């Protein structure tokens, strides 16, 4: 697991109480019960944490933590 994925996991767990094991197991946000409002909130947190803009809807409910890390990396975040 990359350092970025670890950071995202910690953020999701500490801020929203998302289950760490489920994230490690590769569950998507929708599978973990993350609803649309929570997803927007998480995207806002990422913009602040990584200081990069994100468009509404860019973070998708079908994403896993690994796919989220890929999105951020493609936008310039360090892996």
């Amino acid at each position, binding site marked *: 697991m990359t350092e970025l994925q670890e950071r995202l996991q910690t953020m999701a767990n500490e801020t929203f109480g*998302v289950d760490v094991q489920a994230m490690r197991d590769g569950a998507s946000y929708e599978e973990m019960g993350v609803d649309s409002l929570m997803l927007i909130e998480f995207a806002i947190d990422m913009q602040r944490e990584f200081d990069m803009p994100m468009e509404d809807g860019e973070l998708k409910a079908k994403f896993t933590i690994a796919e989220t890390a890929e999105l951020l990396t493609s936008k310039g975040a360090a892996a």
Partner: protein
Amino acid sequence: MTQTADRPSARAVFHAAVTGIGLVTPAGIGELENWAQVCAGVSTAATDPALAGLQVDFSCRIPQFDADELLGRKIAWRIARFVQLALIAARQAVASAGLDSQTWEGDRIAIVVGNSLGGTQTMEDQQSRFLEEGAKMVSPMTIPAAMMNMVAGHLAIDLAATGPSMVTATACASGTTAIGLARSMLRSGECDIVIAGGAESALSQTAMATLSKMGALSQRSSEPRSACRPFDAARDGFVAAEAAGFLVLERMSEARARDAPIRALVSGYGAASDAHHPTMPHPDGAGIERAMRTALNDAHLDGTEIDHVNAHGTSTPLNDSTEAAAVRRVLGQRPAVTSTKGVTGHTLAAAGAIEAAYAVLAIEHQMVPPTANLDHLDPLVELDIVTGEPRPMPVAAAMSTSLGFGGHNAALVITSASA
């Protein structure tokens, strides 16, 4: 107590059974902790780091309340603090009533919660974010977290209660209004059990600055513990507080049928409006007097039959003298009067609910808690105010009074189940 037929009430008295109590207040988390603290008569007010820099920088918070620990982060992050307090207090109430939300018939369970200011801290935090970082960074949870009605919505979710759920908003009378409405709902038969109470946590900087500017708050920042002094000649305002309190109410027949603990009865309710001024009470206390008389009539009791009053007693110069005069006119000088706000501070919309719960406990313990910080009784207050030590005494019937901004007045009569 006598039940008279000569008063203008066409119907028989309806007693709603109080079968559960939940309290999360500055006096403690749980009814035992609350009762010990209010009987000790020691104020919970303290300097509040979150209010640093304000003229009034103290409040009554619930210092040991850890929402993440009590509710889990998954629930706690998306709800405002007044809802967090409400969830824990309501769960306590349901458990103490011997009920289980996993197995009850949810369609017959109603939720009625008093609230007045919603999630002020949430709104203020997001307003700051808006101004500093722009609209794009405002949380989508701002409105869902801060709306007043969400306290009822989240309680319904948490308790799988699919009957009617709603919020009552009569400012500082909201909790009393909620209990009065809950009793009416039981009387009408539209539900079998009501989780009724109040919740408030509005200790945010702008809210506190507003209350301070209004002249409503005590300015004793250098001595917070002695700031809330109901009925004292040197009182100068209330101390803002946060809390949630709930009663579980049921019809007597059903409570008996399931061998529920019937701890006391809500036997009367009255409400009236001042129609006088947005924030000042009617100078003659006409509204609270009518609310009290209506509640007595509803309970088929005479004023001389009330043993104890848990008064609104906010510690503001106007409220306490006006309310005291009304209590004197309606109930005379016999009842043992207290204001537990000397200990808890003023929990706004939660006040009526937690004070109704304290009245139930006073009946159960046959004990009236003292009014904290009452050193020199205001000569205008011609009442028997309990001060110093808690007073052991027979309490068969109690009244709880509430007055709110907007001129809302409400009163409950609570009686012993064993009388």
